[in-house]
């Protein structure tokens, strides 16, 4: 063991070189992870040279080193954000006490559950996206896809580090199971529904990275407020990487919207589709679908678990330490729209029980800012069409609005009215077939598929002509 240079193999700031427990765990898990990556990672591109950023330290500049890498040789590292001196538990019954450096026995099981649920999403999205390289609209986009993929892989490492370092044998078993489940698999599905949905086209990919990865951002943000310091530090570092994923998603959708508007202008009848583009109204349907699937991930509006997690100081609100003065959330209430006897009404629930909803509302505000930027882009393109976010009650399968006939404006409809209109609000089979028909790989450097506008600039100061992904040398 002593001969292995862990630092260069697995860049880390967790003293892997001297941590026997971690070494023992990773010795078994690392080859299993590579097997998983080779099986479930991007199909047909494992030998390509991809221009990727790699985190090699948490120093400024160290977390983003650019260069060509074959994905299976990517150096997946383990990084925690730097320790904050005298950090205190930000919320709940222990607010103000020193943070925990070890897992409190009392919370061991629920913490493990929280970490496993978050961790499970990371490999899941790699699996969902594994075929997309074959239909990338440009080398730039292909590279971004792979960047997202390897970083989701790294996020898995980050979570597995916590499981290995702090949860003993149970943690090691859970880490193994993370590699055993498969997105969309009939027998071993991923834990959360959104991560078992197929990702067959790039519009879906961009919506997914914009909306579903944004859920990840808010979950990580809530866990960054955890009283369990290693989890907080891990999540803070992951958040720096997540920003790029959201950028990929937001700008991807924006470029499809722009191109849709441009092609509509070119067409005599204003029909982007006749010009081989994606009409804005069609993109809206994808946005509806993925926004709703993503806000389901926050859990029920009224939740015992959410109250327990907050009370225990395991999970805070978004920017808990920064944005709030009062951190117990006791004797406070949150008013929620509810449905009683088929009518929309409202009721007050204890704030702690509404913590899922608090986080969801922070997320929705963020998503609204994104939609505003998309609408600016549409305006710049001279289009009169606008994107709107559906109401958070629309098309829900979790929580108190689940499976109720709410329209995108949040009004409760008669079931038959809902059924008649749902095809106008969500992608129909025909819409999906059309979008799929547009998916063809464009692999000449600098070229873009017709249905998507070029980005404003390349990666890391490189031009758009840069060969972001190179085929293997013969």
């Amino acid at each position, binding site marked *: 063991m002593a001969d292995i240079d862990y630092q260069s193999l697995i860049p880390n700031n967790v003293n892997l070189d001297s941590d026997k427990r971690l070494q023992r765990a990773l010795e078994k898990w690392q080859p299993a992870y590579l097997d998983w990556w080779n099986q479930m990672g991007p199909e047909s591109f494992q030998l390509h040279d991809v221009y990727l950023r790699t985190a090699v330290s948490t120093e400024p500049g160290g977390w983003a080193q650019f260069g060509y890498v074959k994905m299976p040789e990517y150096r997946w590292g383990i990084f925690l954000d730097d320790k904050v001196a005298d950090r205190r538990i930000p919320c709940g*019954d222990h607010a103000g006490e020193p943070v925990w450096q070890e897992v409190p026995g009392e919370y061991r099981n629920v913490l493990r559950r929280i970490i496993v649920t978050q961790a499970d999403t990371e490999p899941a999205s790699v699996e969902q996206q594994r075929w997309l390289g074959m239909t990338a609209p440009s080398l730039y986009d292909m590279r971004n896809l792979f960047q997202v993929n390897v970083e989701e892989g790294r996020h898995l490492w980050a979570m597995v580090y916590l499981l290995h370092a702090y949860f003993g044998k149970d943690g090691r078993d859970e880490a193994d199971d993370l590699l055993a489940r498969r997105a969309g698999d*009939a*027998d071993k599905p991923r834990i959360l529904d959104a991560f078992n949905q197929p990702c067959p086209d790039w519009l879906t990919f961009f919506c997914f990275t914009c909306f579903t990865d944004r859920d990840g951002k808010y979950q990580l943000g809530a866990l960054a407020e955890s009283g369990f310091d290693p989890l907080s530090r891990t999540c803070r570092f992951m958040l720096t990487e997540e920003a790029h994923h959201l950028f990929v998603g937001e700008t991807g959708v924006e470029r499809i919207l722009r191109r849709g508007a441009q092609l509509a202008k070119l067409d005599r009848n204003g029909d982007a589709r006749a010009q081989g583009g994606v009409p804005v109204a069609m993109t809206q349907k994808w946005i509806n679908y993925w926004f709703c699937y993503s806000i389901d991930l926050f859990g029920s509006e009224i939740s015992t678990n959410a109250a327990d997690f907050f009370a225990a100081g395991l999970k805070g609100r978004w920017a808990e330490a920064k944005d709030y003065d009062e951190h117990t959330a*006791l004797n406070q209430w949150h008013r929620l729209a509810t449905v009683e006897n088929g009518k929309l009404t409202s009721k007050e629930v*204890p*704030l702690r029980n509404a913590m899922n909803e608090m986080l969801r509302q922070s997320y929705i505000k963020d998503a609204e800012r994104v939609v505003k930027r998309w609408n600016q882009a549409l305006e710049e393109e001279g289009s009169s069409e606008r994107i709107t976010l559906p109401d958070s009650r629309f098309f829900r399968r979790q929580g108190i609005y689940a499976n109720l006939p709410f329209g995108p404006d949040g009004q409760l409809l008669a079931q038959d009215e809902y059924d008649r209109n749902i095809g106008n609000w969500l992608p129909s089979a025909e819409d999906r077939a059309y979008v799929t028909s547009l998916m063809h790989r464009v692999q000449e450097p600098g070229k873009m598929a017709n249905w998507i506008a070029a980005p404003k600039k390349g990666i890391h100061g490189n031009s758009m002509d840069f060969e972001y992904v190179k085929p293997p040398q013969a």
Partner: protein
Amino acid sequence: MAEIAYPAVNFETHPDRYRHWKLDVQGAIATLTMRVQEDGGMWPGKYELKLNSYDLGVDVELADAVQRLRFEHPQVRCVVVTGGYDKVFCAGANIRMLAQSSHAFKVNFCKFTNETRCGIEEATDSGGAVYVAALNGTASGGGYELAMCCKEIYLIDDGNSAVSLPEVPLLGVLPGTGGLTRLTDKRKVRRDMADVFCTKAEGFKARDAVKYRFVDASFARSKWQASLDARAQAVAGANPMPEGAFSVVLEPLAPSEVAGNHLEYRYVTVKVDNEARVAHLTIKAPDTAPCADSSTWALRAWRELDDALLRLRVNHLDIGLLVVKAEGDRHKVLEADAALETQGWFGREVQLFQARVLRRLDNMAKTIFALVEPGNAFSGSLFEIVLAADRSYMLADDDGINKVFVSKVSGGLFPMHSGLTRLQSRFPGAPGQPAKVLAVGATIDAEGAEELELVTMTPDEIDYEDEVRIAIEERASLSPDALTGMEQNLRFGGPETMDNKIYGRLTAWQNWIFQRPNAVGERGALKMFGAPERPVFDYKRT
């Protein structure tokens, strides 16, 4: 949360009216699918039955289904119990319901659910259908306990679904519906692994659940239905139908209730005297010849007794003492008992049912006095009620017409939870006495009953009325808690069995915990469940 003063509970239902279960019979295999309506709780608006959690209303339907399967569908040889929602089998008893329930309601709820589950086991053990739990998703708490009363347990292996008993870590109470007892005594789980399991809220997923015998096997999702079907076929195939079985439709009992206090059935009458805290239950002897449908006395009258006992427990908390009389022609009772002997499968099934009713009587947390007076019908199967009573008073009448008849049915047809007959249980120090009593073969008058030690007291005509009145008044004045504890200890002499431990050891501890501030105090775990604050415990232990 305030405790709920609940409306009277009705224990009669029918598959046509089920809200939470679906009974699907296909030849020799029945599927009981639990699909609890969230808004279908017994106390509307007070709690939601989320995640297939149950309340008494849900369990009343289950008990009805189990009973009807025995009588109406004897061709069913395998019952598959499964969940009707994706990813969840059953989350156990509804915690918000429990948190809002009075102590008495919790106790009654647990007792009834225990009786239903022991009844499921008894159905299988007595040659009826074999119950198989098909855990299509997570089975937690009472959900896993329900699975454990089935003979076989299969868990879907989807990388997520688990079995668990999270009561201790999450709720600060016990898995009290047989959970702890069945882990060790039935599933034969090592006690240290049971300890790990019962303190790990999320429980075990397929791999560990199989490894440590918490379930019998797991099947991958894609092979789930086919594997279950194959197993159900095999189970049904190995369990032939009893000869001569036919469907006996259970007619409704529908008693008339007079002023909320009197219950009138065809054979059973209950008069409730709230002021005196006494209920007078009278069961009449048959008035028609035995037949082989649900109107026959042996089934009808005993179903009425069963229903009356349930209503007394749940709807009449003020009643501390149950005074039982049996009236009518003893020969008719003996004839009804004898007819069952000749009625093959049907007779046997009715006898098993009578045995369950008597065990329900044993489980009453009310004092039972039997009054044996001239014109009484306490003979044969009905004499078991005298044996089940805490005390019995037999009038030593001058004419000597007050008699009982102990028949061979008391020799083994009606085992108690201990496995003993009531005669064996009555004479712990005289193992030969039951045989002696059974050998009499003739009516026994008060003097004979006294000699054979079959009744508590035999006052003469001068003393009888006063003796009985004083005994009743005195009884009604004593501490009801102490009486319940005393009676339950004295009634259950003899060896421990799994059932016995469930109703005794497990239930007693659970009921103790249910009273403790750590569970039900202002900051107790049960009260705080779902509330925004965490429980606060008094950590002292003796």
